[in-house]
């Protein structure tokens, strides 16, 4: 910003009229006082890494959803009133259907760009939820949810939940055979609620399923209530992001105390703004070239019909999988019915999952006893337990997702449906612990590998023959920058408990809990590899030099190894041994 307006707020600013933009800025600042905050934000620093784009994809897809959604709402008619279709689509002409379905057909076939917007809206919805999920995994794997960012993690988790609900509401609006079937399943889930189930169902549908209320009600939720909440939460998410400043990867000059990157104006704004157009462009191409939810093929909703192989949108896959592999347990006692087969997978499991996701930062903090602020990201391998936990969760997700398509698997691969289901029932308990163990060992061996590189250098690919005729691979030292990057991490500190039993053998009031915590903390960090100390590193380098001296000095033939790793050219190299 240029010089402030020469005004104390009572006399008009008397700047020489510079240019129209300056005049507008001046006008605005005299009323809003924006320069004070703008002076800091305009050159605000944003660190760069490809994985920081994932959240941006989610943000931009939401903007696309708002734009395309408003377009659709100009023609969509959220009514369950019955009409006879007489639009352009031959196959359905003369058929009774709801106005919602008829207007969706109208948008698809009689409004130019209508089908494009419908498909863009649906693709953007898929992308929105997928991007949030992957973004969340990135935040998890790099430890970006740690103090002081726990609240932003919770906001993100709620956003994901709202996105899924919003997607389900939208999917239900066209009132075609598939979406009606989805609503019917929702009705069954609601009815399984203890005590209140049938009342909740009647209140939701305005009477018996399907009634004539659910589409208008979902419409209000879909275009007003949930987008409003999402918008407010995104605003809070962004404000906190600005307040905390973005995390960054450790590296030379990048510490817990600073943030290094490009300024908001111009580089970040150009990149982020450009990226919006790229996401928008990709969604437009998808909407124009790839069919999604061709509702005209399913026909209007009819409670007596269903299509085989009916599938919900992908993000509902795990709920679907849980419902499918659950055994048919139901209790009938004292005249009441408890449908565990529906209640557990349909209501309890999602709540438990949400609880784990939202509570995770606090669980980890409690176990590790780590209450420090963290602004440097952690490489996934350096938090083996956390990384392995996510790997196990991904395996649960994948299994449930596959279980949600068990009929498709059966028909595509000619397998027996029942066998797949029995397999999934077992796998859901056996596979995740295995994945956990493998992922954890994998992380630890990667940590070892890092230490090897630090201590002995990297493998050059050059095989050396020593005086005794033995062979070894030549190792070359890492660049200082690379070595620093590898060591720029904290040493793990196992929480050992505050007290234990005191001298008189009297246990502190919550000694039990404390012991459990210490034990968990130990298991958490068990077998993690710590970075070498200064002494170890020096000894390692010393050792490497000794080895070097044992090499047979091959007359004019020894290579420094760099000829083969692409660091410099062999042409014109005299191939003498350099020490």
């Amino acid at each position: 910003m240029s010089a402030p307006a020469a005004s104390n707020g009572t006399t008009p600013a008397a700047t020489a009229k510079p240019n129209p933009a300056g005049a507008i800025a001046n006008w605005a600042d005299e009323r809003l006082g924006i320069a004070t905050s703008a002076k800091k934000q305009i050159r605000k620093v944003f660190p760069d890494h490809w994985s920081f784009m994932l959240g941006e994809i989610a943000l931009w897809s939401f903007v696309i959803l708002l734009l395309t959604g408003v377009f659709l709402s100009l023609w969509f008619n959220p009514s369950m009133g019955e009409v006879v279709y007489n639009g352009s689509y031959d196959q359905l002409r003369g058929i009774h259907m709801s106005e919602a379905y008829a207007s969706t057909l109208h948008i698809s076939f009689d409004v130019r760009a209508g089908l494009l917007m419908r498909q863009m809206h649906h693709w953007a919805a898929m992308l929105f939820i997928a991007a949030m999920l992957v973004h969340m995994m990135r935040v998890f794997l790099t430890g970006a949810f740690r103090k002081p960012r726990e609240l932003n993690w919770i906001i993100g988790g709620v956003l994901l939940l709202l996105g899924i609900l919003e997607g389900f509401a939208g999917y239900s609006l066209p009132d075609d055979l598939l979406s009606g079937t989805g609503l019917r399943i929702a009705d069954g889930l609601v009815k399984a609620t203890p005590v209140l189930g049938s009342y909740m169902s009647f209140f939701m549908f305005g009477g018996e399923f399907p009634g004539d209320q659910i589409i208008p009600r979902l419409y209000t939720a879909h275009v007003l209530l949930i987008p409003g909440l999402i918008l407010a939460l995104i605003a809070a998410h962004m404000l906190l992001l600005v307040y905390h400043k973005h995390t960054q990867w450790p590296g030379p000059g990048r510490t817990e105390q600073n943030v290094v990157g490009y300024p908001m104006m111009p580089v970040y704004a150009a990149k982020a703004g450009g990226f919006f157009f790229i996401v928008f462009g990709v969604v437009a191409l998808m909407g124009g070239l790839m069919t999604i939810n061709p509702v005209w093929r399913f026909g209007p909703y009819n409670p007596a019909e269903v299509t085989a192989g009916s599938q919900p949108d992908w993000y509902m896959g795990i709920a679907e999988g849980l419902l499918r592999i659950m055994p048919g347990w139901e209790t009938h006692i004292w005249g009441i019915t408890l449908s565990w087969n529906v209640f557990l997978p349909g209501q309890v499991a999602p709540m438990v999952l949400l609880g784990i996701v939202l509570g995770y930062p606090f669980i980890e903090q409690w176990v590790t006893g780590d209450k420090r602020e963290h602004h440097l990201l952690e490489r996934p391998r350096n938090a083996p337990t956390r990384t392995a936990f996510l790997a196990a969760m991904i395996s649960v997700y994948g299994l449930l997702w596959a279980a949600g398509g068990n009929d498709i698997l059966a028909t595509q691969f000619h397998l027996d449906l029942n066998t797949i289901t029995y397999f999934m029932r077992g796998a859901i308990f056996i596979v995740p612990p295995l994945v956990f163990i493998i992922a954890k060992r994998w992380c630890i061996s990667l940590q070892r590998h890092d230490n090897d590189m630090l201590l002995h250098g990297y493998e050059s690919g050059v095989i050396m023959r020593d005086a005794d005729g033995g062979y070894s691979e030549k190792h070359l030292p890492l660049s200082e920058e690379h070595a620093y990057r590898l060591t720029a991490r904290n040493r793990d500190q196992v929480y050992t408990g505050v007290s234990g039993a005191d001298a008189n053998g009297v246990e502190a009031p919550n000694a039990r809990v404390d012991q459990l915590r210490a034990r968990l903390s130990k298991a958490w960090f068990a077998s993690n590899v710590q970075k070498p100390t200064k002494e170890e590193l020096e000894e390692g380098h010393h050792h490497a030099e000794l080895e070097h001296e044992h090499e047979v000095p091959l007359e004019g033939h020894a290579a420094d190894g760099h000829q083969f790793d692409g660091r410099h050219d062999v042409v014109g190299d005299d191939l003498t041994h350099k020490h």
Partner: protein
Amino acid sequence: MSDDNHELEHVAAAEPIADPGLPEHLPRPTDVDPVMEKRAERQVATLFGLSSVFAILTCVAYFSLNIGGHPTVFLGMGASTVALGGCLGLALLAIGIGAIQWSRKLMSDHEIVEYRHPAASPQEDRDEAIAALEVGIAESGIGRRPLVRNSLLGAMATLGLPAIVFLRDLGPLPGNKLAHTVWARGMQVVQDVDGAKIKPEDMEIGQLVNAEPEIFFATNSEGQPVIEGTALLQAKAKAAVILVRMHPDDIKALPDRRNWGIDGILCYSKICTHVGCPISLWEQQTHHLLCPCHQSTFDLADNGKVIFGPAGRHLPQLPITLDADGYIVAQSDFTEPVGPSYWERDRSNLT
């Protein structure tokens, strides 16, 4: 601050490698070579120009291509959709790629450093805030006047009541509605497509017919349907049935169901007892009926018993018989509620 502020034992070990500091900034080709710079500038401008071209082509496509009628000529879509999406997508992509190219090649690429501050406010600010709050509380007198405080809390809580009560008209109470369907003694079981009546001889062994109560097709004296619109959908959601004909020897009917069928023809609810999908996949050989939603499988030769999947209860059976003209009719309504379970289901009043 926090009460369990255990300072962790610090494992003292000197950092193995000292921070070498930010690497030196290396100029890009476009920073030093005016030719490269000029070329990058032209690239960016070309991309922006292309964007305008595609935006105009989008408008041309909008006016020149027909929609409707032929929704599947290209990639399963109308030409209009494909052209609009393609041109619009390229117009947007060109702006995006251009802007990013501009930022990468031409804008300054000097990284800058900003310092962080702890998220918490400084201690003196906290003290001041708490002091201010305490003054505020003291001046309000909320601590000294419990009567005022408690009655206010009471009033706020009571205001929650209208908020909940106002939702009462969201829907009627369920009453006994879930326990009944439109089936009744003597109602004909008809084809769901055209309402044709069905005689036992119309069905071969192994055949399955999707059926509905005849009332769905009935009209009153003025030619108006007896049930239509929402009421029809609600009735259908419970009353849809399937008729199957099996070899009478294969059927293992429960003792009280021996006269519920006609020569191996049985009638079952089509509504899954899991969460209510209409069931449709019939395996003749095994007499199994499979629900397409979550694959619950019911054995129709064995009273609709669940033999696989997440459903918790057998499929309800509709007792049928023949009327005077030899058509298949219901003996009564279902003898239990159809569809998904609910809490008070076993206490439903079925009479």
